[in-house]
Each structure stands twice: as C-alpha cells, then as structure tokens.
C-alpha cells in the first residue's frame, strides 16, 4: 500500500510566476526580432543577435523549464521541493539580471551593467541548481531520469560560469584564448548540456505517460546519456586545446548517435502507444523533434565549412542556432505548455470537484487558438529558416510576422487558462 504526494500549497504561485514571465518574454522577442531582421545577414556575434539569443535561451526557455522542474520534480522524486523562498529569490535575481544583461547586450555596453547582469543571472541559476540538488539528496533509488536532470543542472552552471567569465573578459581581457572559442564552449554547454539533457530526462519520463506507451527501453536512454556527455567533455577538451579540427567530426557523430538513441526511444514510445489520437500539443512536440533533426543535419556542414574557413559556416551557424532555440526548444515549450499548465491550474482549482460534474484540464484552453498557434509557428519555421539559409530578407520578415502571430496566440491561451472563472468554464 502507498500514498500519493499532494501538491505543496506554496507551489502554485511560484510555478505560475515562471510560466507568466516566460510568456511575456516570448512576446518581447517579437519587437526584438522585428528590429533585427537586417542583422541576420551578418555574423552571429553581434549585439542584437546576442540579446535575442539570451532573451530566448534564458528568459523564455530556461524560465519556463525552471517552473516546470519545480512542478515536476516533487512528483518524480516523491518529495517536496527543498525551499520555496530560495526558488523566489532565484527567480527575482534571475529576472533583474536578465533585464540588465539583455539591455546591455542590445546597446552593447560591456561594462558595469553587463557585469552586474551576468552575476545576478549566475546567482539565480546557482539558487535553482542548489534547490534541485538539495531536494534530490532525499532520493533513495537514483535512476537515469534523475541522472539526466541533475547532470543538466551541472552543465547549466558551467554555461553560466563561462558566460560570466566572457562578460568580464570584454573589459579585462584575461582569458588565455580567443573569445569566439569560449563562445563555442559556452553555447554547446548550454544547448547540449543544459537544454538537451534536461529535455531528454523530462521527456523520457513524461512521453510514455501522456501516450500510454507499452514499450520503454531504458537502455537506449543510458546509451544516450553516456554518449552525449562524453561528446560534450571531448568537445571541451579538444576544442580548448586544438580548436576545431577533423576530430570534431568524430565528436559530433558521438553526440548525434546519442541523440539518435533518444529519438529511437521516443519513436518506440509513439509506436507502442495505446492512445491513438495525437493532439495539437503532441504535434508541436513532433515538430520540435523534426526541427532538432534538421539542426543536427546542419552540424557537420558547419564544421566542414569552418575548417575550410568558408564564410558559409557563419550563416549555417546562425541557422543552426535559430533551429535549436527558436525551433526545437520553442516548439517543444509551445506544445508542452498546454500539457502541463492546464493540469497545474486544474489541480489547484478543480481537482476537489472531480467525481462530480466539472471541467477537465484539456478543456481549460481554446483548442482552435492552439491550432492557429501551431500553423503560424510552422509557417514561421519554414519561412524563417529558408530566409536565413538563402539570405532572402522578405522571407525572414514573413517568418517574424508569423512568429508575432504565434506569440500573441500563445499568450492569449495562457491567459485563458489562468484567468478562466468557474462561470465561463465549458461543461
């Protein structure tokens, strides 16, 4: 016999705060993208693109992941979060730091503001990881899902520390190697270490639950974990000592095989699912995986052209970054928000009514708006990616317009979930 863990009374506010901040940040990306269309034709190490990248990676993707982790980890770890005060403290300093940081990137003032912003961001990230690690100390039987999540947190800290070092390097130039070399390490620790490992860990746990899958192959996840982490470590050592070279291809292949192991796991979950119907939120997830696959396909070409010192490597890198951040991660969040947020709100407001006539979580949002969001996002990814790859400015503009529609529809639906009252709930 056993009992289930009840939702902690302090959890709701902290999780919703994260979702709201992330939604507003996603909307804030619209004007930033509109004012930066011309910059997409140049080098990626450019003030506006750096500001956009950090807004998307930190304010949008990381904030919502922090919130989702606070909600999901107590369920996965069967224990309450270590400290809600620490979670609030982390969120506040993180947001203050983000504002300072993004503003100083946008106007490119690599002085005190950028330094303070980066230190505040690091403080927020340290608070989050400390909270997760102290909570996880209570785990009796660690498993591969928790390994993914905890290792992702370590990579997040590595990313943040490297970021702070680079910010101070703008003023004091103390780093022993080229700034762009550290940028490569910083970006891959963030994308491959933080986002990829965390997404694999959480999705591996949630997908079989949402799909009711008969088959889950944990061995594939173990292979994925060791291959991706080995590739990241080798990439750090090899790139730091020798820069990009032919061995980088082997490292890339190692990482790609790791991702393929995870994708095979995901495929098996889909193939053995009992629940036949794929809803719009899951369609977003499938699109996100497709976008990740395209980004991975681009990766060897970046290394190839970089080794040839061909300028095409720069354009492909911008495409690669946008496919991962605005494509893969954003699509996943745009879909999974409507798998997680309705449940969070419903658990707080309506679960005591279940067993009598009440609305269900899936009815808390407007499915037509979600369909519109999916279509506009699909159009965005197609036009924006082709525009970037072929340097066609009207297509990039069209992509940004579609992105604006997506952002407005997304935030509207988030508001519908959060502010729906009992009176206007569908039966």
């Amino acid at each position, binding site marked *: 016999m056993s009992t289930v863990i009840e939702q902690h009374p302090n959890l709701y506010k902290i999780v919703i705060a994260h979702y709201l901040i992330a939604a507003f940040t996603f909307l804030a990306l619209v004007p930033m993208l509109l004012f930066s269309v011309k910059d997409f034709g140049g080098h990626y190490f450019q003030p506006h693109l750096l500001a956009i990248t950090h807004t998307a990676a930190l304010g949008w993707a990381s904030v919502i992941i922090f919130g989702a982790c606070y909600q999901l980890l107590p369920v996965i770890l069967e224990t309450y979060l270590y400290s809600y005060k620490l979670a609030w403290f982390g969120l506040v300093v993180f947001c203050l730091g983000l504002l300072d940081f993004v503003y100083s990137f946008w106007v490119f003032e690599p002085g005190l503001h950028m330094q303070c912003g980066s230190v505040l961001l690091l403080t927020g990230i340290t608070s989050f990881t400390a909270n997760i690690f102290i909570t996880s100390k209570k785990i009796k039987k660690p498993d591969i899902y928790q390994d993914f999540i905890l290792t992702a947190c370590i990579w997040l800290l590595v990313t943040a520390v490297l970021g702070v070092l680079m910010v101070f390097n703008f003023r004091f130039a103390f780093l022993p190697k080229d700034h762009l070399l550290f940028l490569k390490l910083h970006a891959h620790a963030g994308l491959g270490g933080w986002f990829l490992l965390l997404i694999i860990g959480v999705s591996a746990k949630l997908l079989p639950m949402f799909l*009711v899958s008969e088959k889950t192959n944990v061995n594939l996840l173990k292979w994925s974990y060791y291959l991706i982490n080995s590739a990241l470590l080798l990439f750090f050592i090899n790139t730091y000592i020798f820069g990009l070279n032919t061995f980088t291809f082997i490292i890339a292949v190692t990482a790609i095989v790791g991702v393929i192991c995870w994708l095979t796991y995901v495929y098996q979950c889909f193939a053995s699912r*009992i629940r036949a119907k794929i809803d719009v939120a899951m369609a977003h997830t499938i699109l996100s995986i497709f976008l990740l696959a395209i980004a991975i396909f681009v990766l060897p070409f970046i290394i190839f052209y970089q080794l040839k010192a061909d300028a095409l490597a720069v354009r492909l890198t911008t495409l690669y970054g946008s496919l991962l951040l605005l494509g893969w991660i954003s699509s996943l969040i745009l879909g999974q928000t409507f798998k997680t947020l309705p449940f969070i709100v419903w*658990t707080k407001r309506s679960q005591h009514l279940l067993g009598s006539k009440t609305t269900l979580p899936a009815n808390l949002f407007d499915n037509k708006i979600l369909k519109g969001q999916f279509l506009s996002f699909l159009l965005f990814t197609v036009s924006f990616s082709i525009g970037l790859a072929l340097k066609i400015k009207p297509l990039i503009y069209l992509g940004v317009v579609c992105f604006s529609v997506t952002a407005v529809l997304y935030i509207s639906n988030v508001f519908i979930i959060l502010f729906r009252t009992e009176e206007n709930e569908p039966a």
Partner: protein
Amino acid sequence: MNLPDIDDENFKLLTQITEVLATVIDPELQVNILDLGMVYNVAVKKETKTIEVEMTLSTRHCPMGSAIVNSVENAILQNFTTYSPVVNLVWEPAWNVNSITPEGKKQLGV
C-alpha cells in the same frame, strides 16, 4: 475488477459503488478508472461504515495521482453519505496496458 457477486449480502451497494466509480475519470486520458483497469477491489465494511477501494495508478509517479485518489474519495462521500472512503493504493500487480478493458481501449481510439 470483477463484477459484484449476486450472492454477496452487499450486492446492491457494491453495484451502486461500481456505477459511481465509473464516473471517476483520469483527467489526462479522459477514460474512467474502471475501464482503465485501475480498480482492483471494492469492499464494504458495515461495522466501521467504510467503503474500501483497492486501486493502482498507471505509474508510481503519476502527476495526476492525488487528483484521481481525491476524486474517488469525493465520489464516494457525495453518493454514500453514511460511509467513509478508504483508498488503498497498491503497486502489485503493476498496471499495464493489458489492464484496460475493450471499452476503455475503444475510448482511447485503439
């Protein structure tokens, strides 16, 4: 779960409880917990005035676990006011897709 035995002295009450439990649905899958095969046994204890439900969840860490258990308790409290609900979660035998009834599979679109 087996249907109530007609020779059982609580047959009528057990049948009513079964009907009530069929109104409790998994919020994510939107199929009732009986057709999902999550309920293993129902017993009426007249001496303690309790209705005991032995059930499981699709996984140990089901995020909807507390919601489903609460809804079972709510459903019993609302329909059998003189009884108290006792929900015992068990993990053996573990739930799997074969536990779903043909009707449940139909509702899931299988």
